């Protein structure tokens, strides 16, 4: 079983980092993983996207045109990638910055005001961790406890950021939990 997650947004939104934390968590869970960044000639403030492939078998093509899931942090990303997401995947929409929806009725659409939640917690820069946590809580792509530990490990060299990011994980988990 293989699943793929596309993280997409502006450069500076922490796209590569949240994708890396997911890849690390999946590796800790014993899965095969590949973290594939877009590294074209982009400028600051341009689009950034990154795919994480998670599989229980060795990964063939690490280049994915049709991911199972999408975490869209800004509107251009949603417009570009929502049409290529596979049916039955999760599309997370950062509604703080995106005023539209995916227009797909064959996916699980998860609308979260990621930046607003992060701002309320005290720092908008934790928006990527809120989004990652909401996405994992909904998709269950990795065990949530392993994800939490992976976030902690990522910030282990900047220990003062751990409490904020643990709050972001908690808020994201709450936002991502299936309703009802």
């Amino acid at each position, binding site marked *: 079983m293989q699943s793929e997650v596309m993280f997409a947004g502006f450069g500076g939104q922490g796209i590569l980092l949240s994708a890396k934390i997911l890849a690390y968590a999946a590796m800790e869970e014993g899965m095969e993983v590949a*973290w594939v960044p877009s590294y*074209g000639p982009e400028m600051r403030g341009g689009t950034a996207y990154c795919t994480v492939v998670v599989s229980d078998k060795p990964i*063939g*093509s690490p280049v994915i045109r049709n991911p199972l899931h999408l975490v869209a942090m800004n509107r251009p990303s949603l417009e570009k990638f929502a049409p290529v997401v596979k049916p039955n995947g999760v599309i997370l929409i950062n509604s703080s910055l995106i005023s539209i929806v995916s227009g797909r009725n064959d996916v699980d659409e998860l609308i979260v005001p990621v930046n607003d939640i992060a701002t309320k917690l005290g720092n908008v820069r934790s928006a990527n961790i809120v989004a990652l946590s909401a996405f994992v809580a909904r998709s269950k792509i990795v065990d949530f406890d392993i994800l939490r530990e992976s976030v902690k490990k990522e910030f282990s060299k900047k220990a003062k950021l751990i409490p904020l990011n643990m709050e972001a994980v908690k808020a994201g988990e709450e936002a991502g939990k299936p309703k009802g």
Partner: protein
Amino acid sequence: MGKVLMKGNEAIGEAAIRAGCLNYFAYPITPQSEVAEYLSRRMPEVGGVFLQGESEVAVSYMIFGAAAAGARVFTTSSSPGISLMSEGVSYITAAQCPAVFVNIMRGGPGLGGILPSQADYLQATKGIGHGGCRLLVMAPAGVQEAVEMVMMAFPLAEKYRNPVIILGDGLIGQMMEPVEFPDSLGSEPSNKDDWATTGMDTRKSTKRNLVRSLFLDPKQLNENNLVLKAKYERMKEEEIRYEKYNTDSDYKVLIVSYGTMSRVCKTAIDQLKEEGLEVGLIRPQTLFPFPEIAVRKTAEKDSCKAVISIEMSMGQMVEDVQMSIQGKLPVSWYGKCGGDIPTPEEVIDAVKGLNV
């Protein structure tokens, strides 16, 4: 030590250190600059040296100097940078010094693009430098294999007293995958007393070691070239490496593909299997020496009707595939070389287009 999640470029740098290489000279170029970035930090930590040359030409001669003095040494670059190094590579080969080169390729001639490509196959395997010099060429298909090949490359370079080059595409350099490092190697070429210019007083032997590439006497020059030829022939006997995929099936088509491209082909093969079309793959891990006999034998299966070389180039390895098949089956090519990696679907279309 368990698995770590690492970017290919950084893992290549770490692998060199663990292979006991404490000398890294380089000039940055995308898509492999992270190797220099990583080693500029790591080399001082382990007592090694990172020196940025003023150009790739200079770097190639820094490599020559260190190698001639018996030090483990390596560099990394990308296509145009490798072209600049090619003069030094030829001298190093003629003088029979061991060194390791890594080329994380750019696409196309000229400055090329920074996205994944395999446009330097012919350069690496046939024309890495003037005068008919050859390098042992290895091509990894993932970060773990890149690490293993870097760590194999140093002892192989020393075994043959000949440079080894690792040919990767941008994805190998930029992607992160879990890596487990093999045990570290010792830090010195084991046979260097026989040839390195380390100074008489530090050696047991009283023989004078001389490293040179200049042989004015035609007989001597011919002798030296015969020695080099004998090494290339020995590589063909002892160093050919390849992997096969789905070759237990009654495959109708045999794909020959290497590096990242071979992984896309494996995904395509799995999908074709579900559709009822069996396709086999042979992935050369060494590009020189090329697994000529293995490719031919694998194509000789009765069910196999066609062979296709799939590359991120405009058709380079296909020449070696044709040579291997010796006209016994139709050999075709499919590929792209703009940085856009062909998708499994495009590979599937190319295979179906063979109409077998």
